[in-house]
């Protein structure tokens, strides 16, 4: 059995607020677009399984799974919820297809953080109730601590992190799906208010609302649904540890191990040469550098230099986050992985508009589940 392929994508775009539609209507729009893109399939009969990627507390309902089937066309069909990251949802769809019992699987994820009045209290609610939560405070201090250790151990600099912000927000100006595209100087970032030292205000992605649906198909039906299937060459996902006290604070171990899993299946030995571009999680500016090194796109301590030299810009030889990343598109909670996947698919299809990269064949999408986790996933995609 050959690789499975992405044959349909649908996105509502990402906005800072979406007061005119409910989350159900957002999901319906993303699903309608994706099914149309996938050769106009009917979810009522052509889709063998549906996966919704969601967490109760992001939505404000317990058992969010209840509220999902209608708007995806999955009533009395085979849908379930994975409480994880969207790339884990894609990995699950891939496993279903590889069992041989499913040909077409749809994966959905969305975020509507504008519906959450106390977003960062919800993030704190994920912290260990006995050891960490009683200390109080805004949970993003965990990011500050990690950035501090990362810069110290790898020699990357705050200035280089600020360059990531300028690059990504600039890229986002060319992305019609992005919420926070802007012309930002490195100086703007360095002078912005210190929030969780060494994180400044502009080092941190802002939340945005949006939804994405992706349709994955077995190789047997892929070409029937789309002339330009994008092959899932490898996928990996790892939970390092929930414990803050015993984790590695400088390296993104979860990303390295997940990438190794994905590269192995994809037959990639030297990612820095074999990967043409990457979309990585940049919830905080330093995360882009940390994830680049974990994905072995460069050596330890080199990610900042590559950024400074323009290697990871749209016109560089290893573009990273051509979409603008989350710094540019906004942080859509569990749909972060979808945002990364979407861009990789569009680039490999040649549908990325004015930010289209030339001659790309292999792209990597990586995601992280955010504070306070050390969990993430990686997918390797190719158009050949």
């Amino acid at each position, binding site marked *: 059995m050959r690789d499975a392929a992405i044959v349909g994508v649908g996105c509502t775009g990402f906005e800072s607020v979406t007061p005119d539609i*409910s*989350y159900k209507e957002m999901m319906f729009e993303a699903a309608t677009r994706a099914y149309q893109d996938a050769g106009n399939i009917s979810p009522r009969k052509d889709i063998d399984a549906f996966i919704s990627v969601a967490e109760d507390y992001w939505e404000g309902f317990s058992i969010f799974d209840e509220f999902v089937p*209608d708007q995806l066309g999955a009533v009395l069909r085979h849908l379930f919820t994975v409480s994880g990251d969207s790339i884990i949802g894609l990995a699950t769809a891939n496993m279903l297809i590889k069992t041989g019992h499913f040909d077409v699987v749809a994966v959905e994820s969305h975020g509507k953080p504008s519906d959450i*009045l*106390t977003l960062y209290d919800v993030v704190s609610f994920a912290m260990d109730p006995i050891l960490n939560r009683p200390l109080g405070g805004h949970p993003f201090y965990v990011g500050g601590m990690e950035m501090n250790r990362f810069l110290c151990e790898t020699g990357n600099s705050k200035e280089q992190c600020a360059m990531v912000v300028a690059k990504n927000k600039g890229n986002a100006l060319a992305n019609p799906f992005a919420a926070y595209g802007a012309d930002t100087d490195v100086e703007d970032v360095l002078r912005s208010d210190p929030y969780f030292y060494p994180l400044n205000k502009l080092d941190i992605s802002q939340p945005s609302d949006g939804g994405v649906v992706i349709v994955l198909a077995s190789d047997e039906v892929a070409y029937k649904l789309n002339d330009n299937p994008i092959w899932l060459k490898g996928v990996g996902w790892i939970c390092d540890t929930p414990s803050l006290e015993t984790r590695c604070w400088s390296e993104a171990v979860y990303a390295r191990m997940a990438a190794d899993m994905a590269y192995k299946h994809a037959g990639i030995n030297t990612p820095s040469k074999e990967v043409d571009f990457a979309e990585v999680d940049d919830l905080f500016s330093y995360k882009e550098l940390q994830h680049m090194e974990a994905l072995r796109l460069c050596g330890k301590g080199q990610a900042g230099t590559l950024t400074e030299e323009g290697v990871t810009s749209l016109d560089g030889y290893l573009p990273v986050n051509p979409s603008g990343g989350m710094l540019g598109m906004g942080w859509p909670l569990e749909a972060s992985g979808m945002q990364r996947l979407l861009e990789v698919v569009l680039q490999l299809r040649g549908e990325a508009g004015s930010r289209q990269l030339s001659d790309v064949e292999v792209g990597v999408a990586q995601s992280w589940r955010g504070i306070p986790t050390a969990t993430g996933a990686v997918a390797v995609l190719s158009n050949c």
Partner: protein
Amino acid sequence: MSEKIKRFPGEQLKGADIREGRIPSVKHRPNVKYLWSTGVAMSRFLEGLKKGKIVASACRKCGRIMVPPRAFCEQCFKPADEYVPIKDTGTINTYSVSYVAGDASRIKEPILVAVIDIDGASEGMGILHLLGEIDDWKQIKFGMRVKAVWKRPEERTGSITDIKYFAPLKEG
């Protein structure tokens, strides 16, 4: 449990020991607050309730009139075509008599709850609501006809509780 296994892990605690603080514990009340956009369909529904009407949505393809209204037909998987007011009378599909409140405590006067199929909507299209003006709940019957009893217009806020309850419909 297998007969090969002899050890059954788990240490039972008594509720009283927990309540009276004899078990070490950490308390936390999460500060999680949401304000959900009601979107297109629910906004119409709530605006309708404020005006004293029950609003449904219609799908021309399958012909269903759906309440609660939704912006899309989940059977045909297409956007709904229009929003239509329907009647505020209906038929009891199923009902129950509750002596228990949301926090599991007992209440003396039972709450009467029912699923009421609303007239004007497609068959089986019911909503959840309370029943009122019933002296003896044993008089409630499956298929009984009921009518919404509304709050006064100035008291309505655009909520399902703008209908106070459904009462037996007096025919004639």
